[in-house]
């Protein structure tokens, strides 16, 4: 268990620092209460509607497509780092992977998933 000591120290430090700052600012900071303070986010702009409203389903489509290509990057990075070591076979394998993704992209594109009417 010796090797976990630094982790434990870090954890203790994080807890102490976080609670310490919160307690300190609570004790010493100025306190002024207004209506605006009750908003979920204080950004200087007045609220113009409730956050709980219906969102168009198109966002989900975009999100799913984003997720797909985001994950592709997660695979491409380690491959790029080890490119020389993996050699020709790694290259071919990655091309097959990308080809399958491109099939999906072409399909999504052609069937209009990328259009925002």
């Amino acid at each position, binding site marked *: 268990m010796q090797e976990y000591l630094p982790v434990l120290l870090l954890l203790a430090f994080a807890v102490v620092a976080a609670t310490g700052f919160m307690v300190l600012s609570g004790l010493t900071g100025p306190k002024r209460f207004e209506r605006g303070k009750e908003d979920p986010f204080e950004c200087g702009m007045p609220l113009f509607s409730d956050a709980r409203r219906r969102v168009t389903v198109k966002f989900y489509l975009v999100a799913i497509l984003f997720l797909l290509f985001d994950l592709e990057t997660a695979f491409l990075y380690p491959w790029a780092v080890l490119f020389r070591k993996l050699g020709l*076979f790694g290259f071919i394998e990655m091309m097959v992977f990308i080809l399958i993704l491109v099939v999906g992209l072409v399909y999504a594109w052609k069937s209009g998933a990328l259009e925002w009417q």
Partner: protein
Amino acid sequence: MDLQSILLSLKAIVPEMILTATGCLVLLYDLLIPEENRGVHAGISAVGVITALFSVLWFGSERIEAFSGMLAQDTFGSFFTVVVLVSLLLTLMLSRSYNDWEGIQKGEFYALLLFSSVGMLVMAKATDMMTIFLGLELLSIPIYVLVGFDRKRLSSVEGALKYFLLGAFATGFLLYGMALLYAATGATSLSGIAAFAGKENVFGNTLFLAGTALLFVGFGFKVSLVPFHMWTPDAYQGAPTPVTAFMSAGPKAAAFAAVIRVLVVAFPESHPFLLKGLWVVAALTMTVGNVSALVQDDVKRMLAYSSIAHAGYVLVGLVSGDRLGGQAAMYYLFVYSLMNIGAFAIVMLLSEGEERGYAIENFRGVGFRYPVLGALMTVFLVSLGGIPPTAGFVGKFYLFSAAVKKGLILLTVIGVLNSAASVYYYLRVVVYMYMLPERAEEVRPRPVGVGVALALFIATVGVIALGIFPKGLLSFAESSILSIFLS
């Protein structure tokens, strides 16, 4: 891994590669052709499936440990590959006409069927929990979409949503079970778990027991064992009928393949503990499935409940826990696919569209007005009920005789009583077809195209031929089960 072993590994997944390529091809070709020509996808997919079947004949018997032990091609995997591919082929033949009738002729339908089948094949060959999970997800996600494919029909979407929510939940159970097993044993490979279970006393290991239990809960959802069967009736009834037929055959066989492999390879020592649990589940599954099917007036829903009961019969073979039981279960899964897809095909023909349902009233007088349809339906129902000389009888005979040889007398009695009860609701349809007067307004069967006719022909010939000459398939099942018992 060096190049040589990668190339060898690729040889183990030839059918998967063929199906994936066909799926991509269908998806892309769909974008190029006008809407009215989309039926051609069924043909393209069928060509891919037949090629994959031939590739199993060429490479299938060789044993290959692929991808550093993540996957293995052996006779066991090949057996289930054949089951899945045959079910897929029959489904494709039914889908083409059906999709025209219901106005859902789209390329995605066929691509999703193909991708889902790839998942099933991976699951049948998986020798590592990671690959089992990968196969299961690849199997499930396209099926969720396919259940809700007729998205303008409320029952279809309802079934899909229920299936998706419960299925995602079940996946959570399965994954948690795998994680606990990994925590307990430090291995994700089935042989690694077996090695751990052989060394340590697993009965005192809470992590191990909890992991095993959760793993089997997850599998129970997928093959719809009681008490994890709640999604089955609604999903089966809501799904487009060819998809229902496919769901009751392909995914079920693939999930059972994974269960058998896990039982045989990973838990050979802790069998008694697991088998007691499966004993109870098998008895419950048969009873609840059959009793619920008794009171259904909708034939599609009746077949959905009967598919729960049949999962129970197959489980009896696994509870026997030996070579004979496994062999009988595999034989039964194959013939069940044939007879069930056949029965669903007739149900599909005798309806007035999904919206109007599949009331048993539609079957009144069908036997005399449409003698061929009536006769075929009778063959499938008799086989489902387990009456000789059909394959359903031989399957049940082997399942129960394996159980008796193992001394599971009580379970066999429960099974046989259930089977007798099931004859009531199967033959009720036959009574409607042949013994009740016709309805005032006649139900016209859908026009039978070449594909549907061919599917019915294959299913009928299979059910009767395998009932009279079961030897060939049984010895294939035997050599398959031996290939994992000995490895």
